[in-house]
Every structure is written in C-alpha cells, then in structure tokens.
C-alpha cells in the first residue's frame, strides 16, 4: 500500500505528472476573476471567499481524471485488481495521493491568493481552515467519480458533470465558513458540518468507488 502511495507521488513529481499544476490553475483562475467581474476592491472582497473556494474546487476537479484513468489505459488497473491488495485500499491510497498533491498545496497557497482578491483580515485563517477540512472530501468524492467514469475515453467532462453536484454540500459549507469568518461571524456550525462531510465520505466512499471499478473492469 505504501508502495502505491510512493509510486503515485513519484509519478506526480515526474515530468508531465502535474504536481504544482493544480496550484497554477488555482492562481490563474483567481487572477482571471477580476478580469471578468471588474477591478473594484469592495466587490472583489465580497466575492473573495466564494471565488477562492470555487477555484480550489475546480483545480481539484481538473486533476481528478489522473486518479484512475491513466492506470486503466496502460493496463495497471487490471493488474492492481488481480494483485494481493484490497481494491478499497487502492482507492483510499490514490485519493490520499491526490489530496497530497492537490488539496494540500491549494490549502497552503490560498491565503496568498486571498491577498489578490482583497480578502478581509479575519478571513485568512478561516479560509485555510475550511480548505484544510474540506479538500479531503473533494479528493474522495472525486475518486468515486473517477471510478465511475474509468472505462470511458476522455471521461473528463462527464466526470466533472457527475462530481460537481456531489461537491455542492462541501462547497456550501466550506464557502460559508470562509465567508462568515471573513465577516467576523460565528463559524462553528458550518465548520462542524464540513468536517462531518469529510469524515463521512472518507469512511464510506472508498467502498463505493472500489465497487464501481470492479464493475468497470468487467
């Protein structure tokens, strides 16, 4: 299992593996927002928490198809399915590798990007906290979506379509935490709900994802 984690991280680091690209995408989306909605500081400050959460979500989304699709194309997934490791574990490890290479860097970079969007002072801590609590859920839900679409050539867009609705609760609570934090309101309730979503998906979705992969390999 650790071998798999190491392999996935190593693949992410190698040329073309895409480590850091999610981050760059996040940066670019944040930069593009003012071009779209105009440069006024107050307007940007109001949309900042939401935009940052959306940007993080999209950056996650774009890297999802790496989770299983590549392994399916080159046949590794067949081989992993016949290897002496439980497929549920494979899913969990791959979601974890995805989080380490995408969610974690996003969380760490978010405050710097908050600066670009005039995020109000108290918002920084809450933004980081909410992302730290929410991105694991994004990775696991994404892994489930990737498992559903693994057999399809360029399932990328379909994957987005399947996964985005599943992301809605995470996004709502996450953005709510960040927004309330930025405005200095109480954040306990949405934060607990967010953490609950993360914990729940982490515990259950690997099983669903493994089942989906088994069906797709047939």
């Amino acid at each position, binding site marked *: 299992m650790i071998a798999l984690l190491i392999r996935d991280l190593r693949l992410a680091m190698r*040329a*073309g593996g895409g480590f*850091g*690209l999610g981050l*760059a995408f996040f*940066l*670019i989306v944040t*930069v593009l927002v*003012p*071009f779209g909605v105009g*440069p006024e*500081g107050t307007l*940007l400050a109001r949309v900042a928490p939401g935009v940052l959460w959306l940007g993080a979500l999209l950056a996650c989304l774009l890297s999802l198809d790496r989770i299983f699709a590549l392994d399916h194309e080159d046949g590794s997934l067949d081989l992993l399915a016949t290897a002496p490791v439980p497929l549920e574990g494979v899913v969990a490890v791959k979601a974890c590798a995805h989080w380490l290479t995408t969610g974690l860097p996003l969380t760490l970079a978010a405050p710097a990007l908050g*600066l*670009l969007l*005039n995020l109000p002072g108290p918002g920084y801590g809450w933004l980081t906290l909410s992302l730290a609590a929410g991105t694991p859920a994004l990775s696991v839900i994404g892994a489930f979506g990737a498992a559903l679409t693994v057999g399809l050539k360029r399932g990328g867009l379909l994957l987005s379509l399947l996964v985005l609705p599943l992301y809605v609760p995470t996004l709502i609570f996450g953005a709510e935490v960040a927004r309330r934090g930025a405005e200095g309101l109480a954040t306990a309730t949405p934060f607990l709900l967010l953490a609950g979503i993360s914990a729940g998906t982490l515990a259950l979705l690997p099983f669903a994802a493994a089942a989906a992969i088994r069906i797709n390999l047939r």
Partner: protein
Amino acid sequence: MSIWEYANPKRFMQTSGHVLPWVSGLAVLSLATGLVWGFFFTPEDYKQGSTVKIIYLHVPAAMLAINIWAMMLVTSLVWLIRRHHVSALAAKAAAPIGLTMTLIALFTGAIWGQPMWGTWWAWDPRLTAFLILFLFYLGYLALWEAIDNPDTAADLTAVLCLVGSVFAVLSRYAVNFWNQGLHQGATLSLDKEENIADVFYIPLLISIAGFVLGFVALLLLRTRTEIRARRLKALQARERMA
C-alpha cells in the same frame, strides 16, 4: 569572424569561462555599491519617507523582468531560425532568473504599496500586466519541465515564447483599457526636467547596472550548466547503447 562562432558550444564554454569571473566580480561590486549607497546614504523623500529606498530593488528588478523576456524572445528566434543550441539553452537558463525578478518586483511593489496606497495589491494595469508576465514565465518553465526530449522541448518552448510575446503585448493593452492605474509613470525619461533628483538617480543607475551584470553572470553560469547537463545526458545515453 562571425558572431555566430560564439554560438558553438565548445567555443562558448571557453569564452564564457574566461569572462565569467570578471562579470561576476563587477556584478557583486556594483550591486553592493548601488544597494549600500541607496540604503545607507540617500535622504528620505519628502512625500514617501524612507520607502523610496525600495526603488533600488524595485525598478531594476522590474526592468530586468521585462527585458529578460525580450531576450528570451530573441534567443528563441535565433534557435528556430539558425538552430544554435546555445541559444535555446540560454533561453532556458534565463527563464528562472526572469521569474525571480518578476517575483522581486511583485513583492517589493506589494510591500511598497501598503504604505503608499494603503493596500498590498490593486488591480492597476502595470501591476496586473506583471502578474500576467509571471504566469507566462510559469507556463514557459512548466513546458520545459514537462518534455523529455531536449530538442523537442527547445522547439516547443520557442514557439510558445513567440506566440506568448504577442499575447503579452496584447494583454498589456487590454489591461490598460480595462482599468485606470495608480502606479507611477516613467521616472527615467530622457527629458531631464521630469527626472527624479540626482541623489536618488545615481545610486539607482548603479544598482540597475549591478542587476544587469548579475543577470549576465547568472545567465552565463546557468547556460554553462545546461550545456554540461546536455553533454552528460548524451554521454549517459551513449554508454547505455554501447
């Protein structure tokens, strides 16, 4: 003798080996002079207080950041047209320096903006254009990293540099159109009337010279490293084949 002779790798290694110590020495000297002079021995501005001292970092870095991209454009063209490998490798070597310069300009600008404009960041056209330049550097470097075959990488990044330059200029105009700015106009115009006072001007010039020389020294060093790396790769491949 044609200038292209220096584009021959062997010749380049020899010449740059001779030149390098001098350039590095001069760079350190002028950089130290400019920065020390600027930091310790210039008066405060009546309006900006001691923050003017940031100019000795900000302006040279900003100028270099733009001009390094221009240099990469030229070397990319040379590579595409005349296929001199040193030229392609020089573009590759310059990109991280340009990236660092962009970062320095952005950081010093942001830090400067806090007392002057009351905000770390504003979507001023000049600042925005710089952020876009930063993205171009990132993309350019990422493309170099992503491609395995060195010649393919050189070709593709050169094409990207060409197309990117056109779009960078376009973006500059677009950004100008999009938002009016807070940023200073040109201070170093030829028109003496508009120039800042000599007390600031001379150390600024020295520090610009220091930055430029430092860039040349780093560029030579990095290009030499790239050439060595290419040779290493070739030798390793040859050993495997044998």
